[in-house]
């Protein structure tokens, strides 16, 4: 599972070593754990909660989750690194996830990718200089009938052309 490789051993700055869940998170965690007979099964939902709250999964977040669920930190890191959607580095404000699988490619993803790299001045894995956009390549997003498809944070955009994409990026950049 190759996401943008993040050297977890040397954590990027930006998050304190000892991270704590506030009351709101604690109550969400309690609700999550009530859904499963074993606390470990709550790992993915709790990681999602952390990512929603903090924007990415830092080493400090992994330690806090491990302590809360009674798991080894290394186990949690192993799980986080298996899944491509957990961000192990803080992404830009907008994460542009470009599907490069067959159906989308047949409908013109290549042109969009070339344009995006030019416009943002980055390659896959890079973040634009203004910190607004992180560009990543992803596999089939399950929306192949609308190819080419790009997911921006949580939202899908389909049937894209360079013009439509530019309009979307302009709007996001200004937001």
């Amino acid at each position: 599972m190759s996401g943008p490789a993040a050297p977890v051993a040397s954590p990027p700055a930006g998050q304190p070593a000892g991270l704590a869940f506030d009351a709101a998170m604690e109550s969400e965690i309690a609700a999550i754990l009530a859904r499963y007979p074993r606390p470990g099964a709550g790992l993915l939902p709790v990681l999602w909660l952390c990512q929603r709250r903090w924007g990415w999964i830092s080493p400090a977040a992994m330690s806090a989750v491990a302590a809360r669920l009674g798991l080894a930190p290394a186990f949690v890191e192993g799980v986080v690194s298996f899944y491509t959607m957990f961000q192990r580095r803080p992404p830009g404000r907008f994460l542009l996830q470009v599907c490069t699988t067959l159906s989308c490619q047949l409908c013109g993803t290549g042109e969009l990718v070339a344009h995006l790299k030019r416009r943002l001045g980055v390659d896959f894995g890079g973040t634009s200089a203004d910190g607004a956009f992180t560009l990543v390549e992803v596999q089939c997003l399950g929306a192949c009938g609308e190819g080419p498809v790009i997911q921006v944070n949580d939202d899908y955009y389909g049937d894209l052309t360079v013009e439509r994409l530019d309009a979307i990026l302009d709007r996001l950049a200004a937001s």
Partner: protein
Amino acid sequence: MSASILLAARGLAGSRSLANYRSRGGYRGLAKALAMEPAAVVAEVRASGLRGRGGAGFPAGVKWGFVPTDSPKARYLICNADESEPGTFKDRELILVDPHMVLEGIAIAAYAIGARTAYLYIRGEFVREAAILDEAIAEARGAGLLGRRVLGRDFDLEIHVHRGAGAYICGEETALIESLEGKRGLPRLKPPFPAVVGLFGCPTVVNNVETLACVPHIIVRGSAWFAAIGTQRSTGTKLFCVSGHVRRPGVYEEVMGISFRELIEERCGGIRGGRALKAFIPGGSSAPVLPAAKIDTPADFESVAAAGSMLGSGGVIVMDETVDMVWALENLLTFYAHESCGQCTPCREGSDWALDVVRRIRRGHGRPHDLETLRRIARYASQGMTICPLGDAFCGPIASFLEHFGQEFEAAIAGATAPPTLLPVLPLRSDRGLFDHGAGGA
């Protein structure tokens, strides 16, 4: 023979609400099922001939029958909404159009197998779809259709949505179970099958969204009604997801057995730009590719198998005459090399190796023995050499691309030049490519 059973509410305003679903007869199947013995529900679904829509086509009622009834353990139902097979986008459509139909199917199946908890595992990218399901669950709970004493009967049921986090392999049922338990999604060896030892070590049935969505209709209208639709061994309707070079891509609900010609030429308006069809992948990217000459194949489990491929998930990827098949195979192998979980050597190494070989063929550095190397990889990473069928999933494409479009690969190799240095010049994904010199004979 367009059909409208699962997607009857498409285009209807407010179709996602409970009130709307009920106004169309929704949850009558659940009420009817709860008045039956669980075993009778299983028997009804078995008699309908309903086969799994997640890819393998296993009869749903038969699978439910494998759940031991004498076990003191809890039993679980899992609805598989991972929708991770490239070319597949039907479960998302069902959730967007009629989430309560999916929930009703889950509830009936849970009742039939004696489960009191069901999980709906949905791919992490489907954030909006997960929220729609959460909302529908809350609504159903509020109406006494879930929770304690469903519809006042002696049956409790909770359904929880569980989001994945980006991994194709988690669509495979045992990897899904591992993921749901909070682990890396590494498939388990079978047997034991999940029906006996599944989630948390308990008997578990995993069914696809579309499979479960058929269930309420079977219960309401009867197995004979369902069995009369389609062909003798592929009953009911099927959601076909057509993508690629057609004029009108999208999800089409059709009676099993419609021909790919009708689907592609009539429903989808034919090939874009008036070009000719070159090839199509009939059942999601793992299904062997078929050449245009097979377009009259009926789209049902048996006919597609007889044509040398599989109906799979119903994801039909259409390619026109301009597609470079070496490029297309490289694209597919990129997917599998990325998604192999890494547990089994033949799959982990084979997918990377095959990708390296196809890549160099396309870059004009192919070697005479490369096709033999690819055929060997396709032979040795498939058919039971791996824990799960991801090995087969990339070997089928390799073998079929070479079978039907081998000349394109041969031509690329014939025109190849030696790479400018002894070491591979390609940006290899790993050092593995270094070891395949002379692989055809070694």
